[in-house]
């Protein structure tokens, strides 16, 4: 059974976002990594890249699919998880911890609050399965 931590916010496209001051950490959900299967590659954005909420800024590739990762908020990429370059399997092993993708310094950190909460996202995932 996939985990849906309540302290996180989610996108319909299966990213999670966690606000830490004015920085937002982004990864993909446990449900998403399970659906993708073994992650073999993550194409990360450049540090310093500017993004609008909804922009495609990364790609996650598994043995069966390659999917775009969308920016949940508007801002600037300030850090990327370079460990994923050598160890993409971290996305499968710890999607909410070591498997994070990138951090965005948000122009309006409150934007995070408008994303789905755990309950809403879980309901969405369950609906997709049926």
């Amino acid at each position, binding site marked *: 059974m996939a985990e849906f931590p309540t302290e996180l916010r989610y996108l319909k496209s299966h990213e999670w976002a966690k606000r830490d001051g004015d920085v937002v950490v982004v990864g993909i959900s446990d449900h998403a990594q399970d659906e993708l299967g073994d992650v073999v590659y993550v194409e990360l954005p*450049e540090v310093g890249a500017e993004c609008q909420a909804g922009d495609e800024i990364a790609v996650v590739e598994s*043995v069966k699919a390659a999917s775009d990762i969308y920016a949940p908020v508007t801002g600037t990429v300030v850090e990327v998880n370079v460990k994923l370059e050598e160890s993409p399997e971290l996305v499968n092993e710890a999607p909410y911890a070591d498997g994070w993708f990138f951090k965005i310094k948000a122009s309006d950190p409150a934007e995070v609050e408008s994303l789905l909460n755990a309950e809403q996202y879980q309901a969405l995932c369950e609906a997709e399965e049926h």
Partner: protein
Amino acid sequence: MLASIGVTSIEALFDEIPEALRSGELTQTPSGISEMALLRTMNERARLDEVQLSFIGAGAYEHHIPAAVWDLVGRGEFMTAYTPYQAEASQGTLQLIYEFQTMMTRLLQMEVANASVYDGATAMAEAILMAIRANKKNKSRRVLVAGDINPTYIEACQAIVRNQGIELEQLDFDEDSGLVGLDDEPGEFAALVVSYPNYFGGLPDVDALTDWCHENGALMVGVVNPTAMALLKPPGEWGKEGADIAVGEGQPLGIPVASGGPYLGFMCCKQAIVRQMPGRIIGRTSDVDGNDGFALTLQAREQHIRRAKATSNICTNQGLLVTAATIYLSLLGDVGLRSVAMQSHQGLQRLLSHMDSTGKVKKRFTGPCFHEAAIELPIPAREVLPLMAEQGILGGYDLGLSFPALENCLLVNVTETKTEHDLTLYMTTLSTVLEAKGC
């Protein structure tokens, strides 16, 4: 069929394609003819193709092809195979492509190769698109293209990239050397494309060009002749860091010269940018029992999975021609290929020295050549070629067709297929024709 999918007309099917991107009516394409009429036309035209002694290269080169090559390629197991959708069921095909990739990486001294693309020109276009995707140092969509690259390649690339917001800027070649020079302030660009040897058979300073390109934050793309790579410095060794992408036409490797092909494009790159490479890549792996096996890799980037976001829409390869090239290379080996390259080069050198002694024709550009050179006649090439053809000799390619300033120039190629007698015959015929023209 249209009714059952709820579409009113063929045109309505294409509604989502913007007007600006549509070709419109193809005015140069005649309407269809019957099978009987087509056969008759083809037979009539085939009769015009007399067997002649050909000195035309210009991108397609006549080399000896050992009989075993097409004997083996013609076997049903290869002939009827297509990269299948359940690819792993065809271990033989996959192993052959894997061997091809290995040979190409060794020949070019590059880290990875794909399973081939359509031909040399489309390989260059794919390299340009790939370089723009792979360049993380700048976001430029401007690509510098050496003006001494095969003009038909540049034309094909323009056709492929011009609707994608990519600007190809041609660098002029020097009038004396036929080579492109370096610009002090080139502005921002994503990639530089250089041909080695160039269209005139000449040898640009690829080390300097590669370093200059990298200093400007761009990716280096080499378009190379595979036979020449047995003698010349391969792209993986150019400059301090080597070329990033190397492509070319694989026809010289066991594929007969034919008008329009089919030929085969090869494509290699550095490991660091392999995920931006289009096309199929076969990898070697092991199965659950630990036996060697071969598999398609990096498929997730392709259009049957990524749809519109695919790395490229080239998902196929020239399977049969790859088979021919692989058998050709395995029969010749590195010593054989070097010998072919050396004999071709020496043949050209002998022809050029015969020309020197006439005093009427001379090499157009300074500097060394591989197996092809531009030679300058006292009169336009188009006046000389038909008369040579009457004597059974295709004397070369009329450079005036692509470069008006070079209308007196012929692009002449010699390979290992030409004997001393052929070279003498060429010179005698050329001299006779020139004399008849009052030169």
